[in-house]
């Protein structure tokens, strides 16, 4: 009997230890079920629908709003200053912020959204609109508040990108794309004076780095997701077609093998370190790596809005240079730009009018002058003008953004960034590019896994 009781206690103990795994499931059930029958609808129209009723911002009663964003320290400071300015303008509205680094952020926000516990105003990644609100139930249609937010400040194309299920679920904060940045100080040490402008330049740089600086020096360092984007740039330029169109991947296995071999050629020619080499170095992100700080990694392929983060990380940043986009083929330039992030009001918000006023303040009004280019070059015309007038747009970010937008010529499917594909621990891109670099997969196997993964995500969201 004594042993039976002991056994029971032990079983209860293990059950208790593991019970937490079910908590989130139970809390999410109701909302998930509601979404189960819905289908994602692509952006179709952004005709400025007049609000169904006139709205007036409450300037007398105490109102509390919440806002959330991710980013680095400088972005946090900019947001906080902008919120202080908003509070000065509307003393009755108190805005409580939640912010943090990107790492782990999406998991927290998606869980909050599932439980209808998201912040009133939310900085959202573009694909969240498609992934978490395919029926438009998680975010309000901002066209309903067009008398509070001046939506005419955004281009139709930008608004189209944020219109899901015929609902303008967010306004784009900025448009962004990938470009090369180089640490020319290291390039000069390797005897190279010009930024690489072609594939041949990259290969030549790889050899020069290895011969003159040693095995630890590389002209370029790219992670798993960067490799996927660079391969997409290569394929789109060479074959002249978008990676995904009409909810289908446009590339055959043979073509993807070509793309993977392109990445392999960069590894083989010492242009980029292998994935094992990068993992062994034990860093979270390239900008935090000693190799980047010391100039051993002399180039990155990053978002145009990230310029300052990488520049400021360098021990000697005098050689930090915005590079040129590289055209790898002759059918198209290749590459894409996308909405870097958007600003949305969650459906659970109790004060959507005031939340809309906050968005307008941050991206069209005085707040935009404070935010500057902290979230990229503002997509709002008025916001950009205010930021430029306040001299708050960083020249480096503007230069990179201008080059990207002038170059790219392919559309981007929103599911390209689906967490199932993009996740750096468990995503398909990580599996494919790490597996390929480790030698676990040959090019054919890697291509098959990539195409299966992409089509799986696309069909799940069809």
């Amino acid at each position: 009997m004594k042993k039976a009781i002991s056994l029971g206690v032990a079983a209860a103990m293990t059950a208790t230890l593991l019970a937490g795994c079910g908590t989130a499931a139970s809390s999410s059930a109701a909302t998930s079920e509601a979404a189960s029958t819905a289908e994602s609808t692509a952006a179709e129209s952004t005709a400025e629908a007049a609000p169904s009723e006139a709205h007036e911002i409450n300037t007398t009663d105490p109102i509390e709003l919440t806002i959330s964003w991710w980013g680095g320290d400088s972005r946090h400071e900019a947001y906080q200053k902008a919120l202080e300015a908003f509070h000065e303008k509307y003393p009755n509205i108190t805005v409580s912020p939640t912010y943090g680094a990107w790492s782990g952020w999406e998991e927290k926000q998606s869980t909050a959204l599932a439980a209808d516990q998201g912040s009133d105003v939310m900085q959202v990644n573009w694909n969240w609109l498609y992934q978490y609100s395919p029926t438009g139930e998680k975010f309000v249609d901002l066209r309903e508040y067009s008398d509070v937010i001046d939506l005419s400040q955004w281009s139709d194309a930008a608004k189209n990108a944020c219109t899901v299920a015929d609902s303008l679920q967010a306004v784009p904060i900025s448009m962004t794309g990938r470009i090369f940045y180089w640490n020319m100080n290291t390039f000069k040490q390797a005897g190279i004076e010009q930024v690489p402008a072609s594939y041949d330049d990259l290969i030549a740089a790889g050899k020069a780095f290895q011969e003159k600086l040693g095995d630890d020096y590389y002209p370029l360092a790219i992670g798993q997701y960067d490799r996927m984007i660079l391969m997409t740039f290569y394929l789109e330029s060479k074959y002249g077609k978008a990676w995904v169109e009409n909810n289908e991947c446009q590339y055959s296995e043979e073509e993807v093998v070509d793309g993977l071999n392109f990445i392999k050629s960069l590894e083989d020619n010492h242009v980029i370190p292998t994935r094992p080499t990068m993992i062994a170095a034990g860093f979270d992100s390239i900008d935090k790596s000693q190799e980047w700080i010391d100039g051993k990694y002399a180039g990155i392929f990053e978002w145009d809005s990230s310029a300052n983060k990488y520049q400021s990380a360098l021990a000697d940043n005098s050689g930090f240079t915005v590079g040129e986009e590289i055209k790898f083929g002759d059918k198209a330039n290749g590459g894409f730009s996308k909405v870097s992030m958007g600003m949305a009001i969650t459906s659970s918000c109790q004060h959507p009018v005031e939340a809309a006023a906050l968005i307008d303040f941050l991206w069209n009004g005085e707040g935009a002058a404070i935010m500057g280019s902290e979230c990229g070059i503002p997509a709002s015309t008025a916001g950009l003008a205010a930021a430029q007038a306040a001299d708050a747009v960083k020249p480096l970010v503007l230069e990179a953004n201008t080059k990207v937008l002038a170059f790219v010529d392919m559309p981007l499917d929103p599911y390209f960034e689906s967490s199932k594909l993009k996740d750096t621990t468990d995503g398909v891109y990580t599996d494919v590019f790490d597996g390929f670099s480790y030698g676990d997969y040959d090019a054919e196997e890697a291509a098959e896994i990539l195409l299966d993964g992409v089509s799986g995500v696309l069909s799940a969201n069809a």
Partner: protein
Amino acid sequence: MSSAPKTTQRTPFKRWCDENTGLFFLIPWILGFLIFKAYPFASSLVYSFTDLNFFKGISQYGVMNYVEIFTSRKTVSVLLTTVKYAFITVPLKLVFALFIAYILNFKIKFVNLFRTVYYIPSILGGSVAIAVLWRALFKDTGVVNTILGFFGIAGPDWLADKTWALFVICLLRVWQFGSAMVLFLAALKGVPADLYEAATIDGATKTRQFFSITIPMITPVIFYNLVTQIAQAFQEFNGPYIITQGGPRNATTLVSLLVYNYAFKSNEMGMACALAWVMFIAVALLTVIAFTSQKHWVYYAD
């Protein structure tokens, strides 16, 4: 003339209340247990037989998650890695904790300081600071390889090598041996001194005393530590999450991390629940085995 004593007539309800007063004091705990433990526990079992997704709801019922768990290369590999992790860390941790506790049981100077210092890693848990420390130790140009290099040994790429990466994660758990050590220390202090005196008179060596007196006398605590450490090892999350994120190539992805990935990254809550239940059953089975085996090796003085 004396009046008859006044007897208060208790109603059945009042009598029931009086007899069950204790129950009323337990109600807060019972409610908390039912709402926050029992219900989630039971509902996770139900969800494990569905394809529940945070944002898409349920569209399918059945055992597909369990079939997937035992047929998919990825999940089978993660289950095996978790078993390997548990079988490496649990014995290592117990031996190490007992060894340190045994030393700290001697009358040495600053013993309280040492006890505190050895306990500190346990309270650090999994944090960014630990991740930074561990990476600084084990990166290719880290402290460990620098020391090995001093002796002319070329250290491996600890974080990138699929075998060594798991060892790095195991080491973190072993390093955090403080709680087991404290329990061992308490048990060692409880061993009657007269047993050692008698053994010494009989000519037993210290080693013989350790294996013939100390170990048998503290087997209940060894047993307790074994069961709790097995449960904790199977639930290990912090180490792989903060240091390797499950890499390289899933070599350090343990079941808890995979549960997290399914639940919060790909929102496949049904699959996450099924994996959690597989983990629960595995831990429960090992616990049953441990309890069954105790009659052969655990000595209760009473």
